[in-house]
């Protein structure tokens, strides 16, 4: 750890409407930059919670965007996904295993009580990166379609699905 840098201090991340970048795209790039600077070693596990919209119809889109952001942080491609929860219940969870053994555990829920929740803990083999926000979300951004498709299949099958 560098002199004067406090563990757990939130990184200052610039994103959002000012740059006309979607929320997750901005977040994804900021985290990727921290990873590129080797601040936490090799990312090995992501734990993330998002409750951004009261609309059940946006759950999958949010999951797809979150997975798209997350997948750029790991050094290997997604290999398997396991889905839990359900759209009707307003809570879906994706567990993604990457080819290199890394894991991402992403929970997306309907926003039922203010404020919105955007919370991630990215664990590296030599440190952790945390991000907390209560954002107002604008237009949707790009989703990871193959991973989202595997997620939907897993949700239907209630079993892990290989990502192709």
């Amino acid at each position, binding site marked *: 750890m560098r002199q004067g840098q406090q563990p757990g201090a939130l990184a200052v991340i610039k994103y959002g409407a000012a740059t006309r970048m979607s929320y997750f795209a901005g977040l994804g790039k900021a985290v990727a930059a921290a990873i590129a600077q080797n601040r936490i070693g090799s990312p090995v596990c992501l734990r993330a919670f998002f409750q951004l919209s009261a609309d059940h119809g946006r759950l999958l889109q949010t999951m797809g965007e979150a997975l798209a952001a997350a997948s750029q942080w790991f050094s290997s491609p997604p290999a398997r996904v396991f889905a839990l929860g359900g759209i009707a219940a307003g809570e879906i969870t994706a567990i993604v295993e990457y080819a290199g053994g890394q894991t991402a555990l992403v929970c997306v829920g309907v926003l039922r009580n203010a404020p919105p929740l955007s919370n991630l803990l990215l*664990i590296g083999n030599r440190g952790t990166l945390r991000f907390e926000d209560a954002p107002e979300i604008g237009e949707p951004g790009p989703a990871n379609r193959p991973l989202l498709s595997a997620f939907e299949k897993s949700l239907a099958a209630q079993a892990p699905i290989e990502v192709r």
Partner: protein
Amino acid sequence: MIGVLLVAGGRTHQENFAPLFAADPRCRLIGVTDESDVPPERARWNGRFAGELGLPVLADFDQALARPDVHVASICVEPERRGRVAARAARAGKHLFLDKPLAASVEDARNIVAAVAQAGVRSHMDTLVRTPLADQARRALASGRLGELRAIHCDLLFAKGRAGTAPPGRPRREHFPPRSFTFVDSKREMYTTGVYSLALISWLTRRPPRRVWAVTANYFFAEHARHDVEDFGLIALTLEGGVTATLTAGRIGWSSDPLAGPNRLLLVGSRASLLLDAYRPRLEIYADEPPWTPPAINPGDPMGFWKSGQMEVNTKPKQSWIVPPSPELPTEAGYFLNCIEGNRESDMPAARAAEGIEVLMAAYRSAATGQVVEL
């Protein structure tokens, strides 16, 4: 006066339990005992611990259990010995205060449960349910303000050990059944840490798990890789009624957290969600003062598992985050003494703890096969 017999001593959680019993005016510590054939190193730690507390070493385990002034056995032997040791203590008519996890196999766990039932004694496993975080969660669920519970997500990761030494890029291959659980320099972390969150989930929801899926990994430590045990585990459960539960458990390195490690809980209800963090509210202090540095590696306890091991290398407390005092809750020991005095069942008896072992073993089976395991 309730007599407490300490089964195993130093370099176990007895270092935490014994002072709690000793501080309770209802208790008297009787002595330290263990099985007669323990390795010399274990016998040495037991003797040293007894000496530090001014207690006798009671060399004959059965005679120690037969003493009429012993009412409670505080059992902290290695997981692989817990099944037979706890069952023997129960059959001797002693109430059991049990280190977690309950046992190293489903069979051992069931033996303990059967012995407890047969002897009619009380039992209790140490967990983290008597903490402000658990208490807040329990009160939130009981109030009904979250609505119907839809999901519960727990993270408990300990910031100890020198991370970054695990061989990179080698996905872990799990084996089933797991055979060894603890070494001087490593533990199976899904087992030893995940049990806390499994107990919390069970305690809060009272819903048995129906489906289990898990992943284990070696992300951080060469020590764990060398012994082929995981330093990280992830478990996904579907509880009775379709409630989703997930947990992450492991050890992430001394410098990976400003305090003890992430410890948080997200409750998702049909009306509201609640994210609880064991370290919120907190004071955060950043100042022109020397930064905290990890302790020197203690060859006798390289991961800082034990209070004694940390003291030997003069481990300094981290000071950036300060958590204000919470309303006082009973200690695990005090709670169990209340149960004994009130002749009532603990909320974490051996029977419930045994359910946790069933889930953990299903999780290891899932991690080894890659399949969902039905319970």
